[in-house]
């Protein structure tokens, strides 16, 4: 597979919905989590939804997504989004909500405005948890994209797995499975290391 270039080609097509879905989650998910953390009205409305989404086996929704959006790229991107979004939103929200109240009080005592409290205390404080959310979200995204490729239309790495399995070429199939596991594990681990470098535990707020 590696020699004939089919593996590289497969990853090119697998990675596309993953990246698009992850970027959407990164912007909208983090943004919404922040909004939820800052506004009690938004929290009241959406927290129960996200608590359910986080606990629900979102993979079950993928066939529904296919039913609505067909078998194209949109469905695959959405499969990534539905799996990755809940953890990203929830982590951003918790990061905001867990801000040390004493720091907020300090900022107010030194005449910080609400905007300054958010920009200089709450957001830097939440940054580490947001990053954790993105890392966990990406892990879910990998699951999402593989499920999409297995369930929706066989493309990319999902296609390699399905195809080699159907022709009983098990060594090739296992190689495909192992490669996606390896790539996901290495990526997530690298992000974990980056996270510890960017946000050392002792410099996070408590």
């Amino acid at each position, binding site marked *: 597979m590696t020699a004939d270039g089919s593996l590289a080609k497969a990853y090119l097509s697998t990675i596309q919905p993953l990246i698009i879905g992850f970027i959407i989650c990164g912007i909208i998910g983090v943004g919404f989590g922040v909004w939820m953390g800052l506004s009690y009205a938004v929290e009241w409305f959406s927290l129960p939804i996200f608590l359910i989404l986080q606990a629900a086996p979102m993979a079950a929704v993928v066939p529904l997504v296919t039913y609505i959006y067909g078998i194209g790229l949109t469905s695959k991107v959405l499969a990534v989004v539905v799996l990755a979004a809940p953890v990203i939103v929830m982590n951003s929200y918790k990061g905001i909500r867990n801000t*040390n109240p*004493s*720091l907020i*009080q*300090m*900022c*107010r*005592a*030194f*005449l*910080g405005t609400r905007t*300054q409290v958010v920009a*200089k*205390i709450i957001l*830097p404080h939440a940054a580490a948890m947001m990053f954790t959310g993105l890392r966990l979200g990406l892990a879910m995204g990998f699951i999402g994209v593989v499920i999409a490729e297995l369930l929706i239309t066989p493309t990319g790495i999902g296609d390699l797995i399905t195809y080699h399995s159907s022709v009983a070429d098990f060594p090739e199939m296992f190689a495909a499975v192992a490669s996606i596991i390896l790539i996901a594990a290495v990526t997530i681990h690298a992000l974990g290391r980056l996270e510890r470098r960017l946000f050392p535990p*002792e*410099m*996070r*707020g*408590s």
Partner: protein
Amino acid sequence: MSVDPIVELKGIGKTYETGVEALREVSFGFPVGKLSTLLGPSGCGKTTLLKIIGGLIPPTTGEVWVKGKRVDGPGVERAFVFQDFALLPWATVLRNVAFGLELRGVPKEQRLEIARKFIGEVGLTAFESSYPHQLSGGMRQRVGLARALTVDADIILMDEPFSSVDEQTRRKFQEDLIDLLQHRQKTVIFVTHSIEEATYLSDLIVLLSARPGTVSQIIQPNVDRGSKSADEIRRDKNYLDAVDKIWQVLKKYLG
């Protein structure tokens, strides 16, 4: 106290949403340029009272007047030193000290210069680029004190600043605090639960009763700080008398 008080409390009461009444009818005027201490049994609402003066908590009843004006929020004339230091864990000592000025929009060069001056005064010059987690409790509180000094407020509110600092560091810190304040015309309102600390530092001690806290007695230790060394003060007759007198009052609220 014939001079006008710089901070005046008029019938301050505070009842929390839980129904707990923390303070009742506290009225008192804090004299300008003095170090006044709020002292009382634990749970008497001294920290709550200080935060009300700081404008961080609204009182349920009553008014706070600062320099002849009624206030209902924090203001430039008051700076706060927190019990838990409240330092930004992701910022260096320098940025933490300059943070009050940063919030006021003072240009970077200028605020860092002011911050460096006060970091020097509290003896932390070597730690300018350290992060809070690399410092001891006593050093962290020096950062908190330096931050309060940079904004040049007339009134400094200190909420049990030494409570998370060990005994030896605390003594040294108390002496340094007196030195730092001696040549500045600052009014300090200080909360503590330590009778010795209150007597050693204060010109005036406001004793609060048990919850709901109200002014129980005013004590002036009359310790001659000018001519005596720290160790002489701790053996001074007035100092020891005041400690005893406070203890006699506070004892009633215990047990």
